């Protein structure tokens, strides 16, 4: 069973990765922080007595479920918001698209610093990962970033191992094609 120290070390090692993965899905930093906090508390409260080696898979599953819950809540909230906004349309003519973030249109290759180039590459990579279809992104990140094997990934995603392989393959092809289009090689 995991001690407080072991659980803390595990969370410290996984929290940033989990946060990034949630950001890829929800595209909102505050929401991602809330989701990761929820997942951490759920892991600690419900599975704090499990052995350390079981924690990675459990945490991944909890993060996925918390993200799904967030989307469900958003869907319900958006239904109500759109319902009310249809009444208020004449008073408030603001376009909801104004609130949507527009992608950065920075020019690439102008920075001389290697560090800036690297940061830019990571930024592009993260944006391209964000663009991937949800299932492909989940499978790809679980397999290669969280280093879960195909069986574990299939179990968490609730699909067959063959589907995981297909999702990963398509995600890798899409990413490689997108990077190639931008003239970037890893």
């Amino acid at each position, binding site marked *: 069973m995991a001690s407080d120290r072991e659980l803390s070390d595990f969370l410290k090692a996984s929290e940033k990765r989990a946060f990034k993965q949630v950001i890829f899905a929800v595209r909102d930093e505050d929401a991602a922080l809330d989701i990761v906090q929820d997942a951490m508390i759920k892991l600690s409260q419900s599975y704090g007595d499990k052995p350390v080696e079981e924690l990675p898979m459990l945490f991944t599953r909890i993060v996925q479920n918390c993200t799904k819950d967030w989307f469900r809540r958003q869907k319900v909230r958006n239904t109500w918001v759109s319902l009310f906004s249809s009444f208020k349309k004449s008073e408030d003519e603001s376009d909801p698209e104004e609130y949507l973030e527009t992608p950065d249109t920075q020019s690439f290759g102008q920075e001389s610093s290697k560090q800036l180039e690297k940061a830019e590459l*990571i930024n592009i990579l993260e944006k391209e990962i964000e663009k991937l279809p949800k299932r492909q992104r989940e499978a790809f990140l679980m397999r*290669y970033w969280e280093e879960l094997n195909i069986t574990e990934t299939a179990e968490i995603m609730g699909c067959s191992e063959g589907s995981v392989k297909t999702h990963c*393959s398509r995600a*890798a092809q899409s990413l490689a094609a997108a990077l190639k289009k931008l003239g970037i090689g890893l």
Partner: protein
Amino acid sequence: MKQMMKIDKNIENSKGYEISLAEDERQDLVQDKFGKLVAINLDQGLSELSPKAKLRLEQSRELAISKKKPEKAFAWASRMKLAGQGGSSSNSQGKWLRGASLIAPMIALTIGLLAISQWQQDARIDDIAEVDTALLSDEVPPDAYADNGFWVFLKNLTAEESQQNSDSESSLTK
């Protein structure tokens, strides 16, 4: 001749199969390599998190740890640890306490069973002593109970008493 052609075709098919297998393996390797490179880049990106996000994650972690599920079996031991050592103990001491917390209930159970058997034995001795006391303090000496004649006397006495009782009952009914 026909058979030879068939064998050649089989060899060709198997070669094609092997080639496609090798191609699949190569594709998997390329994909794995690409995936790992992406993961390395993503890991490097983790250090670029905003201070706000880092702080919030740290606070969330501390909150989660404070709400950790208590260890059922070791709750008693951890309470003892906190009381006895002011909350600071080394890892080996923790392990020792965990071991002790497992052994302690077994020792308590054994002591309990021994106490129950001792109590039952004492109760049996008390019963025998009570009978002995009654015998010794009786008007009839204890040796009399070992005498056959006394038993015959008692039998006759009880038979006479029952006879008298039945006589008196029949006279009353008449």
